[in-house]
């Protein structure tokens, strides 16, 4: 009974919420009506069973020593062990570096490409297709291709550099450079998506703003700085959030290109976790997963909150 009452109150609330929002009179329907809650059901069922349940139980599994064959409760030992991983700290730094390079370059290059593609430039269709194209190639395929292109002596990149008299670096085998090289490839692959989101953002800016700017005699640069840039904020927020999350979770590209090497020098958190899984340390790898999860939440939630607050002020 209580539940029913609650539901009724809830739908009442929602109705009043809607009513205050819209002034036009509308016919009233019985609870649910056009927008029944059971529309959530199929998605919710899949999401709860295959995502929430495993995520919740990972807290439990991370307290076990688990070999797939049997499990022993060992308390927080897995966390202690994972945090003792000799290269975890470097992995954290690497993950942050990767996410920062990837997110910032995608924003800068994506915005640049988008401004170019919404201007009166020739061959717009071609340019847009070409920039977006890497998005459709598989990460593994991109990884293999660039591993070959970045070969220190025989790779096409360093041979091209050699042709103009530059000795190319050891992209993937220099411990200091390997991670950055992989991040650059990630940008190569992802800049098309950022560009498309920015184009959408620029296109949706009402023409009046540019018109007003034109009447005020704004230069192209001023146009960009005072109209395009601020009004593209939602697009920027989307891109930063998506590529930050993607960057923090990054695995496939690092794994296909360097496997975290040489040695441990391009390990990211996700590859450290995968190595534990690969060694059969399932509890340990699940504990690592929980750590990564907390790490992402600690970074992304404040950031999103900050963006939203700024949004509110404007």
């Amino acid at each position: 009974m209580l539940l029913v009452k609650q539901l009724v109150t809830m739908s009442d609330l929602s109705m009043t919420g809607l009513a205050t929002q819209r002034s036009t009179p509308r016919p009233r329907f019985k609870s649910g009506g056009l927008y029944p809650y059971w529309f959530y059901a199929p998605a919710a069922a899949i999401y709860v069973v295959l995502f929430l349940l495993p995520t919740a139980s990972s807290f439990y599994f991370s307290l076990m020593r688990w070999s797939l064959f049997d499990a022993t409760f060992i308390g927080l030992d897995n966390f202690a062990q994972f945090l003792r991983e000799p290269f975890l700290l470097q992995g954290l730094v690497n993950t942050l570096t990767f996410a920062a390079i990837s997110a910032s370059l995608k924003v800068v290059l994506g915005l640049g490409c988008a401004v170019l593609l919404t201007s009166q430039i020739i061959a717009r269709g071609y340019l847009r297709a070409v920039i977006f194209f890497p998005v459709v190639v598989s990460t593994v395929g991109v990884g293999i291709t660039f591993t070959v292109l970045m070969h220190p002596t025989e790779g096409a990149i360093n041979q091209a550099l050699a042709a103009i008299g530059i000795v190319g670096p050891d992209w993937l085998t220099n411990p200091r450079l390997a991670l950055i090289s992989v991040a650059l490839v990630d940008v190569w692959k992802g800049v098309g998506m950022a560009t498309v989101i920015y184009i959408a953002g620029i296109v949706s800016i009402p023409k009046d703003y540019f018109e007003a700017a034109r009447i005020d005699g704004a230069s192209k640069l001023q146009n960009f700085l005072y109209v395009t840039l601020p009004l593209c904020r939602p697009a920027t927020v989307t891109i930063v959030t998506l590529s930050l999350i993607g960057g923090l979770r990054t695995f496939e590209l690092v794994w296909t290109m360097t496997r975290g090497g040489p040695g441990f020098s391009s390990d990211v958190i996700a590859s450290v976790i995968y190595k534990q899984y690969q060694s059969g340390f399932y509890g340990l790898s699940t504990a690592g997963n929980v750590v990564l999860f907390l790490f992402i939440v600690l970074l992304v939630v404040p950031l999103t909150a900050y963006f939203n607050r700024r949004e509110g002020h404007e």
Partner: protein
Amino acid sequence: MAKLSIRNVLAGASLFAMALIAGGANAQQVTLSLLVDNSPEVLTRFEALVAGFEAANPDVNIEIETRPGGEEGGNLVKTRLATGTITDLFTYNSGSLLRALNPGQFMADLSNEPWQADVQETFKRVVSTPEGAIVGAPFSTASAGGILYNKPVYERLGLSIPKTWDEFLANNEAILKDGKIAPIIQTYKDSWTSQILILADFYNVQAAEPDFATLYTEGKAKFATDAAALRSFQKLQQVYEAGLFNKDFASAGYQDGIRMLATGEGAHYPIISGALRAMGATYPDQLKDIGYFPVPSDDASKNGLTAWMPQALYVSKNTPNLDAAKKFLAFVVSPEGCEILKSTGGGTGPFLVKGCVLEGAAPAVSDMLPFWDSGNNSPALEFLSPIKGPALEQITVSVGSGIMTAEEGAKLYDEDVRKQAQQLGLAGW
């Protein structure tokens, strides 16, 4: 228009999908599934073995599935065992890695098969359960770890086979001074190759400290504090610092290493003798130019080979077709199986079934024979102890690339070993 098309597209697509999911075929005869790792040698061998077996047994059909090699593949086997999705037959390592699988729980007991009488005792020991049941059958030869070297280079420079580590370094200096080729081949793109110099040094560790393996398993002997064990790491650091590697050691892979050795671009390749089989596939004519010697020790009187036991073939305890599976095993260890073994890449050491003699083996294999016959050999540490740290290859890449010192590497490996031992739930850790 849009309304029509979207509904039709979606409805059509899901119907199509469901029809395809529902589809499936029923086999008429006995079909066995076989999971092997995807290295070319193993795959070719099993393709030939299956073809031979199916010709003799038309009522049995064997489907080969492949998995990645190394730890990744090992993990896949574990997952499939635990989830009950393992194939009827599968290959997997022997020794410590096998013990970690709970073999008694998942693998059929083969102790009473008639062909067991012909299988070598050492091998039986590394494919048995803690309770003593034998669960594996051999399909490959034993291997030796050590240094494969290019004989024409030795002849040209008038070098002789080193008996001590210092002589080995002197040979390398001579090759370096000659300036034509790389003294030592390293191939860190395939990082597993980086650990061989250390693993194959184990005969020397054991010669210096006969009970190292036991103490190590009990957590009482450590690589960082045990002089003989630390020496293995120091040898790697030493050859890196002397600048003896091929220039592209960081980006070269296993196949590159084999090419360099075969064509004489490099003089020494510390590797397991399985490399000879791979070389036989790509550079058969150069096989005669390759010789073998063990990793030298600091004492000329102690000179011996570190042995690797091969992978074995196992049968799932839950297979519905146990008899057919056993039939296949019997075929693999039979004389016909032996013929196929010889025709698909030959040997890298002694075969483990009596009566299967490898005539005309490569010179490098002949170089190993005295060590096998005299007893101057020891199984590698991973066959004597259940613990092998999973990060060893990353550590050896780091030591071999100058990213860390031998001491740092050994210390880090002790940590790694401790983690493995704890995860295995061993006592005393």
